[in-house]
């Protein structure tokens, strides 16, 4: 059984322009020892998926359907009191903007110790020692001194490490990490992701890693789910998604990440408007931007298993593979003529 199993999650948000269909049937599974990447453009619903699962939706957003089972129990229907006992203990979260997530009026050591005492019932002195150890574990030098620091005294990278220590203090089974390294410098990013990966491998905990950085996914994740307009449009292992993308949106993402700008491709008009969630097109939501769209794409889209747990939400996942092969052939012919 998967540690976290989100099934057919639908979330609506009230906006002045009508009801936004922000999540339209999201299903993701995360198992032990796994880092699952959740990628997609701004507004695709990545963070919203996380907030729904954590029970932290704002007043205008509501879950209209679906389940999110954590160790077999549905998080969405359990009373908030019970959810609160799980959050911060077995289910932890790391958010973007770490300084904003820390309490500005309490030292970081105290915050970590409080979390430990609340959920594990440790004594004051033990919790303090645990907090210092947690800071040491995330690679902070001189942790006893750093524990006395306040959020504003920390650099971004240091604050993010504190947040990870806070998330790890109760040895959670699952960490939801929402863009944990966005805005951090490359060298710091590498340190933090190395740390997360090492924790997962050593303890069997799992991570749902929300990011828009495909380099992070390729280097640190086991599986990937690609989101577009509130749906998972493709999922598979890192090798499947990067090596053999079957959904046109994934293909465009992967191609964009490898962009070298060498070839003289003409720059086309930019029609990259995000989909209007209040008035989504029927059938495939990617249809207006899809270079391969045909009439049939306006009919309900099937989730097609293309083998080995690799699934794509597309009418023509096989077509894309043929297309790719044609592209390769053409490239080879072109190269032959040129040389």
């Amino acid at each position, binding site marked *: 059984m998967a540690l976290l199993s989100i099934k057919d999650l639908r979330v609506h948000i009230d906006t002045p322009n009508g009801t936004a269909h922000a999540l339209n049937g999201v299903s993701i599974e995360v198992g032990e020892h796994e880092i699952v990447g959740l990628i997609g453009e701004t507004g695709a619903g990545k963070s919203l998926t996380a907030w729904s699962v954590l029970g932290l939706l704002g007043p205008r957003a509501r879950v209209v359907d679906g389940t999110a089972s954590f160790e077999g129990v549905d998080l969405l229907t359990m009373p908030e009191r019970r959810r609160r006992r799980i959050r911060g203990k077995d289910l932890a979260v790391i958010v973007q903007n770490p300084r904003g997530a820390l309490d500005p009026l309490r030292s970081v050591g105290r915050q970590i110790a409080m979390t430990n005492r609340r959920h594990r019932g440790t004594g004051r002195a033990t919790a303090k020692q645990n907090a210092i150890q947690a800071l040491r574990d995330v690679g902070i030098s001189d942790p006893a001194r750093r524990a006395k620091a306040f959020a504003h005294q920390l650099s971004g990278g240091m604050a993010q490490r504190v947040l990870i220590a806070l998330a790890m203090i109760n040895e959670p089974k699952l960490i939801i990490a929402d863009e944990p390294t966005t805005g951090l410098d*490359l*060298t710091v990013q590498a*340190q933090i992701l190395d740390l997360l990966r090492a924790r997962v491998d050593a303890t069997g905990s799992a991570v749902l890693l929300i990011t828009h950085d495909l380099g992070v996914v390729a*280097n640190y994740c086991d599986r990937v789910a690609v989101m577009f307009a509130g749906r998972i449009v493709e999922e598979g292992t890192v090798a499947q998604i990067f090596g053999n993308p079957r959904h046109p949106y994934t293909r465009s993402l992967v191609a964009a990440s490898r962009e070298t700008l*060498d070839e003289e491709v003409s720059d086309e008009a*930019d029609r990259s408007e995000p989909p209007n969630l209040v008035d989504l097109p029927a059938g495939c939501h990617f249809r207006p931007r899809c270079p391969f769209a045909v009439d049939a794409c306006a009919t309900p889209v099937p989730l097609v298993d293309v083998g080995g747990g690799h699934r794509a939400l597309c009418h023509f996942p096989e077509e894309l593979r043929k297309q790719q092969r044609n592209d390769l052939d053409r490239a080879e012919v072109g190269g032959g003529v040129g040389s």
Partner: protein
Amino acid sequence: MSEHIEARGVVKSFSVRGSRSLVKAVNGVDIVIPRGRTLGLVGESGSGKSTVGRCLLRLLEPTAGAIRHGGEDILAMRPEALRRHRARAAMVFQDPYESLNPRMRIRSLVEEPLMLHTDLGASGRRRRAGELMRMVRLEEFHLDRYPHELSGGQLQRIGIARALATEPEFLVLDEPTSSLDLSVRAGVLRLLKRLQREHQITFLFISHDLTTVAAMSDEVAVMYLGTVIERGPAAEVLGNPQHPYSQALLSAALSVDPGERRTRHVLEGETPSPVDIPSGCPLAPRCPLQRDDCRGALPPLHEISPGHGAACVRVPEGTNQLPATAPLPIVTAS
């Protein structure tokens, strides 16, 4: 002269409120960019790369140094001359949502620089706005919309259209694609390249994204704590980094091809604050290769190949390669 933008010994310090100490953001940087070429300026946050960009446009007054644009000394310009000069050099900012007034229609945003710097009348501005939209490959109906109705990529094209309105010769692009989704990033970069080619515009391209810098730049300069520690042809610097800091930085870049994990070089600790910059090589306190002569004076750029230099005392003897740390084993799901 062939050098279009030429800055020598640029220094910029900021005073700290309530203290006598100075933040030394830039400590003697030389920048040379030939006309129509791109210099990529890379470095981590706090390295001073944005400050250099702003000094080149004289949006900040450098504390010391000389800056020439087409041979003209821009630091000597009087206010009126500087105002006229502003039409010849412009800036594109990182986050178009932050840098464009959300209450102005796109039309007013695009026409604003025309009102400030040209004597075009209303109909002339209208015509030019339409032209600019075609240049950045946006349909004209967007002119009547508001910023929130556009995607990040489209909005950054508006930022570019504004910068181009007065036909500048020099653009400072400060992380122009960092806030954009991957799917539109390439389009914006391609647009910039085409505009550069068609109009012979000189670029200073500031970014921490090494992939983007590699795709855009002719030459690359790497900054650390206010100093250029390595510079040279883009392929040389990014493909064969010589300064220990450049080696560490490049080894932290993540390839999008799973399984292709390169050796990792890890530097101890964090970048020190620019208030107390170590004397000598700024990297020395964190560098595993540091030795006594790193602490004296700032090392000069030692040449490795024509045009490629690194400010490390070990370069001449070839002992400047960082030891590799083994990459983490990656567990892949079966």
